[in-house]
């Protein structure tokens, strides 16, 4: 009985994945992908990974979904390329992929009966940091370097997105996100949803220290709400050359860097926190990072500059 929901869920996930690959037009494919993102949030929940479930819902269902849907709308006039492969080749590749799937399943599931794990090590050291959410501890203490570099990856990608602007509009605002058919209900939604979403975003950031949630989930929700306001035409995307925007982009990583270096003097080395202050520092860090993430994600979704700066 307890397996039934899991079985159904897996079937829905694989169905949505097949649809995404096999759908005739790219829009249907994207919609399949968004549905998959929502379903995956449930899968992550079943694997007892609530933090990941929140991330998957916010990114897979929200941010990536909007990104791909807008891309579809803008690519609308361009003909979709047909798969050029013949039926035999398709079958051949399909067979190879199936074999690969079987191989991965065998390699991933065939391990020892008592799989090795770091869970006890995480639990044993968690008191030294003083946070209740082990995932946040891994992200901001044990493996803080990954999180710091991940922010640099985001910034590099944002600069990459910005670099695609034509020379003459560099520094100007991205194309307006205002919907061509912004209807009254939509505008209404864009007015009432952001305050609610803002509270949820802040809650996720704040809660992340002890309960599931955290910077990226909260930051993405904040970004989504800002985008909603822009979609309804209630605000315009800012000029990318604005100093405030640029400072917001680097603010979180800069605070991270400073707190990391302060460990040389205050604690036991780079990226280590002073005893007793770890929780305070991590929560402050999370707030700074979430702010930058919200701006970076929103600007990535808004795209490169498309209008001349004033």
């Amino acid at each position, binding site marked *: 009985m307890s397996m039934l929901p899991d079985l159904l869920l897996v079937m829905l996930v694989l169905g949505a994945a097949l649809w995404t690959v096999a759908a005739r037009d790219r829009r249907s494919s994207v919609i399949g992908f968004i549905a998959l993102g929502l379903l995956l949030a449930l899968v992550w929940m079943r694997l007892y990974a609530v933090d990941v479930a929140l991330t998957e819902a916010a990114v897979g269902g929200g941010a990536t979904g909007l990104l791909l849907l807008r891309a579809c709308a803008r690519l609308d006039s361009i003909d979709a390329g047909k798969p050029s492969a013949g039926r035999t080749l398709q079958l051949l590749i399909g067979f190879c992929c199936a074999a690969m799937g079987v191989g991965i399943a065998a390699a991933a599931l065939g391990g020892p009966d008592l799989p090795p794990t*770091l869970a006890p090590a995480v639990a044993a050291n968690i008191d030294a940091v003083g946070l209740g959410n082990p995932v946040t501890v891994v992200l901001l203490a044990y493996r803080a370097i990954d999180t710091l570099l991940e922010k640099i990856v985001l910034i590099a990608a944002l600069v990459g997105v910005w670099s695609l602007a034509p020379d003459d509009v560099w520094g100007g605002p991205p194309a307006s996100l205002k919907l061509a058919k912004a209807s009254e209900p939509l505008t209404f939604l864009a007015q009432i949803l952001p305050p609610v979403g803002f509270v949820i975003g802040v809650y996720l950031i704040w809660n992340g220290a002890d309960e599931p949630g955290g910077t990226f989930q909260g930051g993405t929700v904040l970004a989504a709400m800002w985008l909603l306001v822009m979609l309804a035409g209630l605000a315009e995307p800012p000029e990318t050359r604005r100093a405030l925007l640029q400072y917001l982009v680097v603010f979180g990583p800069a605070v991270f860097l400073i707190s990391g270096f302060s460990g040389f003097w205050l604690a036991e080395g780079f990226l280590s926190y002073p005893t007793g202050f770890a929780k305070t520092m991590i929560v402050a860090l999370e707030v700074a990072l979430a702010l930058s993430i919200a701006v970076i994600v929103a600007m990535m979704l808004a795209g490169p500059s498309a209008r001349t700066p004033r």
Partner: protein
Amino acid sequence: MTAGAATIDSGALLVVSIMLPVTGMLAVIVSPARRSEQVALVILAASLLTAVATAAEVLRTGEPIEYLLGNWRPPLGVALRADGLSVTLMVMASIVLSCVGLYASGSYLAPPDAHHSRSRTVFWTLLLGLSVALNTAFLAQDLFTLFVALELLTFSAVALVALDGRPTSLEAALRYLLLALAGSVFYLVGTAVLYGAYGRLDLSGLRQISRDDLATTFALSLMMTGLLVKTALFPMHLWLPPAHAGAPAAASALLSALVVKAPFFLIVLLWTGIAPRPFSVIAGQVLAILGMASIVFCSVMALRQSRLKLMIAYSTVAQVGYLFLVFPLTIGGTANLAWSGCVLQLVSHAFAKASMFLAAGVIAEVMGHDRISNLKGTFHAVPITLTAFALAGLSLIGLPISGGFSAKYMLLTAATEIGAWWIAGTILVGGLLAAGYVFKVLGQALAPPAEGFAAARSIPLHRELVVLVLASAAIAMGFLPLDPLPFITIGRMGLP
């Protein structure tokens, strides 16, 4: 704690070598476009000093430097580790980055006015992004941290390919990005399988407990395949020539000299550190065969190109092929000689290829085009650059005295000593083909200029000198004694 306390001072060097360019990136973003160049050059100079200081420390003590980030022991935390090989590569990368930085300074990218600040801001930010990614790749001791470094490398490199904004460059960038992403996802599948099997991803831990079983073999094969796509070994090289040839010369130099080397370095880490014995022998043979195919096939392709930059890009795939010959040669007693040859090839190719791409940039500016058949009079116009091109060419061919010669000589000796005639033969054929494509260009360029020839524009002297410095560095490597290099074995894990 003991390891951390003993090396706290030298360990800070490793942190600084990664975090200095990070700081630089953030500073470039918030500084006005006209200042970005100065910020970046200062950071590059400081990075070079840090890399040299780290290398000096490793040489002085004869011991690797280790640093535990946040003072958390692996596998829970992530360690940085600098051994002989990684400091060599760090110094190499810093030198190339600094030289390319000098080459691109001044009005190379765009006239210094507000209207053309796009390429300046983007170039300098992502140049520093490459520096962060490379130093992390050389130092980090954790498979997942290495994945993040690889992604940073890819994103920075892709945006540099697309820098000039022409449709052909964008197409090349898109193709590169998609294949590189496929490569990383393969790498990540392997990482997931390894975590499932061992419950840790730190290199030193995995080295001790790796078993010869299905999961390990399968995971390592997937990871190596992914990395091969990123390093562009035959037959997965098709994305490289258009991407490297389409970028501005300063970016091409970085891509060919450095970016394709990081995935190779990771393959070496996996092969020497984690791969269990019977698998590593077979994988070594396969890698060497692909390397040989790269050498022969892409040298011929280089010979057939009519555009200078495409020729140089194909030559990159061929020269990277030599690196992969090392794997079967390390089984016998000549392991150290083979590794030395490989490292020398890696470093001298980085210098020579960076010099060659920068030279190609100068030539294209002076001549107004880069068609090989129409380069008459180039020497007359830019003698210093052409000299540098010729010197870099000597190293690529493997003529004495040059780093390329020493490298190929060592690989050749190692190959003949263990009777691997097929490898020895390929090295010689590759040299002949390289001579073919280098002399094809030189023959044209040394010819007297046609009637009424005028250079399209003049080149600032400092740029020509940078090209010469890089080429001379490639030549200077040839003055090292032709023996196994002692310092690359410092702290090397998993080597005989």
